[in-house]
């Protein structure tokens, strides 16, 4: 096992354990800050999939945007939320949560079996890509290519998503406006 694999497994362990902590923790503040760690670990995993631009985007948008938004909503929604959260969450995984736990574990088992059946390492098209020298190598720089593709091949989805973003900004500002009820 070389250094790359060790770092990959370390990153995967950090991501999964912090995600488990987010799910199991009784305190909302702790789970929000552990979610921060999960997102960082995921950005590291993107780097191991040789998608450095996506990793940077993940850090900028998720940590700069989404996490701050979540913290804002948490702070604006009062502290009685915290008290009630503490009341109902005594114990690691409360008794009333076990149906959802069973659901998640069963789904996990089914999905693992599906992935093992699908055998993604033996898919035909990645092998074809490897034959045609289409696999991204660790020494490549992909960012320029992504920019060119965004402006040519994926121009229509890019425009659609920009219009959607504008609509979302207007809608969110309208919804969170003070004054007369919406």
């Amino acid at each position, binding site marked *: 096992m070389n250094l790359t694999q060790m770092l990959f497994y370390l990153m995967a362990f950090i991501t999964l354990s912090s995600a488990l902590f987010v799910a199991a923790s009784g305190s909302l503040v702790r789970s929000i800050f552990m979610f921060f760690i999960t997102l960082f670990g995921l950005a590291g995993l993107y780097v191991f999939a040789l998608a450095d631009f996506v990793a940077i985007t993940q850090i900028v948008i*998720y940590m700069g945007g*989404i996490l701050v938004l979540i913290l804002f909503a948490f702070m604006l929604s009062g502290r009685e939320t915290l008290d009630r959260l503490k009341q109902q969450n005594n114990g690691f995984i409360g008794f009333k949560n076990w149906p959802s736990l069973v659901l998640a574990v069963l789904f996990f088992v089914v999905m693992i079996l599906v992935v093992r059946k699908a055998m993604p390492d033996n898919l035909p098209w990645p092998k074809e890509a490897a034959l045609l020298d289409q696999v991204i190598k660790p020494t490549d720089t992909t960012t320029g290519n992504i920019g060119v*593709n965004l402006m040519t091949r994926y121009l229509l989805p890019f425009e659609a998503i920009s219009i959607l973003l504008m609509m979302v900004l207007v809608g969110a500002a309208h919804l969170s406006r003070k004054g007369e009820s919406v």
Partner: protein
Amino acid sequence: MITLTHFMFISVALFCIGLYMVVSKSNAIQVLIGIELILNAAILNLVAFGKYDKMANNGQTFAIFAIVLAAATTAVALAIILNVYRKYKTIEPDRIDQLKD
């Protein structure tokens, strides 16, 4: 060499943790975090398969689109949560049981 199977196993585990949070939590913000975990699991798969597409960059481009969509979802959801809190003084989905009038 890290194989695709490893990435898919990690993403399955993340998806199931997110599913558990969405189903079991009784706080709208925690449900939202669960949805973000599910979206991140999907993005991890997109990125992992995007490694085998050097010219078209399909996976990575749509991973970026998915990240932007997640940001848009969160912004609208948090605006709705703030409104709900203003009206009901709680953000537990179980206790919101009235329509407007």
